[in-house]
């Protein structure tokens, strides 16, 4: 069974229809998804700004990361759960939305960037922990993360205009 058929079927399941047709539950989930930007992206941006040497330069990088990452992860968890529900409410519509696809690509790249950072530069954090402006490769990781987060926000917002522009 291909993805198109699968999402077509998923959209006919009773819970998907119920979520799609419920006025308040759907809007509540949407509101949570949008407002959690402030927690997930908000704390991630502050970490990235430290990696770039643009904020909290007097605070060791390891402190910023270890204290803020749990909040960013908690925000990310809420994002994934509410995002999955929003997808489940209209699987085929989302799947066919070009901005949704771009958003998923940017999301995968952001996760990969964070994972790569953990596996490489972060292992030697002791060497540059106190630097007001961390080494170049660390700054690149921070800048890349900021760019991808901005892309995720942009494509996420544009999902609402896909039909209006191309429909």
């Amino acid at each position, binding site marked *: 069974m291909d993805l198109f058929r699968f999402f077509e079927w998923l959209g006919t399941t009773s819970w998907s229809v119920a979520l799609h047709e419920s006025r308040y539950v759907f809007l509540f989930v949407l509101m949570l998804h949008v407002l959690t930007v*402030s927690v997930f992206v*908000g704390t991630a941006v502050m970490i990235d700004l430290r990696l770039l040497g643009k*904020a*909290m330069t007097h*605070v060791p990088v390891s*402190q910023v990361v270890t204290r803020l990452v749990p909040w960013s992860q908690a925000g990310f968890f809420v994002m994934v759960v509410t995002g999955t529900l929003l997808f489940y409410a209209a699987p085929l519509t989302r799947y066919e939305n070009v901005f949704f696809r771009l958003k998923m690509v940017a999301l995968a790249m952001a996760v990969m960037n964070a994972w790569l950072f953990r596996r490489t530069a972060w292992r030697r954090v002791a060497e540059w922990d106190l630097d007001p402006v961390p080494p170049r490769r660390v700054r690149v990781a921070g800048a890349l993360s900021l760019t991808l*987060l901005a892309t995720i*926000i942009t494509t996420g917002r544009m999902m609402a*205009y896909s039909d209006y522009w191309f429909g």
Partner: protein
Amino acid sequence: MSLLEFCRWLQYSAPLHTLRESPVFFPVVATIHLMGLALIGGSVLLVDLRLLGWGLQGQPAARIADDAERWLRRGLVVMVSTGILLFMCFATKYYYLTFFWVKMAALVAVVVFTRSVHRRVAMANEAEVSPFRRRFVALVSLFLWTTVAVGGRYIGFP
């Protein structure tokens, strides 16, 4: 000229009419508005989590607050300037929305609160402020910002 008349004049003025005609203007400004939310969210959480005892506890609150304030100010500049543009596009619609006025009231309240009580507590010598007072101030700040955000989200609902 009443406020409603002003909103009507603004919304139907020639420049706003042109901007509304553009299929990309409103979406792009709304996207930048959303990025401002991330910036404000991050800088507010930085201070309030610290005051609650769940943030950068290894650093003095005053230092964190000082740093966060620069980014909060930048976030506010982004939010307010894009917000004014969004408002102008559909001024009469917002005039009639209760949530819009709730949001504006909460925004004024939180800015005043942040610049007075909140800043005084965050900048104070930590030995001189009781943990209860610190937490209470952080909770009031988070509550007011959440009201602004929820109000903002409801304005956009159909």
